């Protein structure tokens, strides 16, 4: 039996990635990293800033996301996100920009705890990329 399932990543502008032969996906869910294999129970969750790791026959791919929703159902994994970057062709300057923006936001005094947590997370992830 094959151990593969389908993944679809969409952002508002287009279908970002569709793959039929994925064996494992690790997503940065809100309450911690979550690995998804075939026949996972149906689940809906949020993403926090982090790295999506998609493993398939053709090798591993890594994507950086800032937010989004994951839905897994009937061996279909959908990820909806408004900001996603492929790490292999992500520019250093883009990283720097994002990091700068995040740091600016973290410096604001009027943000609540949850946003603060998310922004801190973002900064941490972006720093590890460099």
């Amino acid at each position, binding site marked *: 039996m094959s151990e593969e399932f389908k993944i679809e990543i969409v952002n508002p502008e287009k279908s970002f990635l569709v793959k039929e032969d994925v064996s494992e996906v690790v997503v940065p869910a809100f309450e911690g990293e*979550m690995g998804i294999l075939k026949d996972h129970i149906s689940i*809906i969750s949020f993403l926090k800033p982090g790295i999506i790791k998609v493993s398939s026959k053709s090798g591993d791919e890594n994507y950086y996301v800032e937010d989004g*929703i994951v*839905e897994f159902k009937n061996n279909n994994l959908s990820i909806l996100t408004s900001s996603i970057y492929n790490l292999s062709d992500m520019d250093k300057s883009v990283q720097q920009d994002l990091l700068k923006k995040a740091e600016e936001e973290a410096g604001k005094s009027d943000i609540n705890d949850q946003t603060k947590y998310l922004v801190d997370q973002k900064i941490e992830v972006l720093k590890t990329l460099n």
Partner: protein
Amino acid sequence: MASLDDLKKRIASVKSTQKITKAMKMVAAAKLRKAQESAEKGRPYSEKMNNVILNLSSGISDKENAPKLLAGTGQDKVHLCVVMTSDRGLCGGFNSNIIKKAKSYFSKILDENKELKIITVGSKGNDQLKRTYGNKIIENISFKESKNANYFDADKVGKIIIEKFEAGDFDICTIFYNKFKNVITQIPQAQQIIPLNDEGNENSSDESYEFEPDEDEILSNLLPKNISTQIFKAMLENSASEQGSRMSAMDNATRNAGEMVDKLTIEYNRSRQAAITKELIEIISGAESL
């Protein structure tokens, strides 16, 4: 009858107008392809988003405590209408179709003695509505600077709507836009986004989901996003419709100008011929009388 010179001038002017409409048509055709592409590419996102929300909301047992964005305020006294039009004219019936649709909805609401508030997106809609409904318009948003519809702009509109909703400014929110069907057909749409209309909820499954964190938190995070997404979808559809509408309008204009040039040319030739004949007759009769 107009003199030969006048006719000549008219023909020249119609011809130059035709040149302009032809150019506009070609520009619109090029833009249309891009807009259509992005409208089609954008559809999966909004559909998926809708699906997730429908699945979520069908799983919610406690409708009473459901987030207000989903269930509504329980009243329908104040209606907010978001009328989305273009910033540029010369696009056929595009804007007036939306306005017509919106106006019939407005009068229905006012007949029922409900309060009406209007937000216009795009300056053309504002121009047309402010004469009759000027005092009802609470905000006018225009994205003249941005070239293409982008999510960032949609998010801005979404945030304004949510802000007003949370301040208790309205109970029901409807957006008006043109859905792009094909180049000649655009269907004006009225879509209710607050509270979420779950009509057409056929494919909702009974399958239970695992939620992480819990449903409420996901919903309250997702619903505002969904508003922006729906608005973004409307913007994409609208921009494709606008270009399509403009293209066919300009195509018509070019054809009409062509017909007019033909007609004027015939008239010009006729009067030229008449003048020559007249001159000849004068010469001949002058010679005869000698």
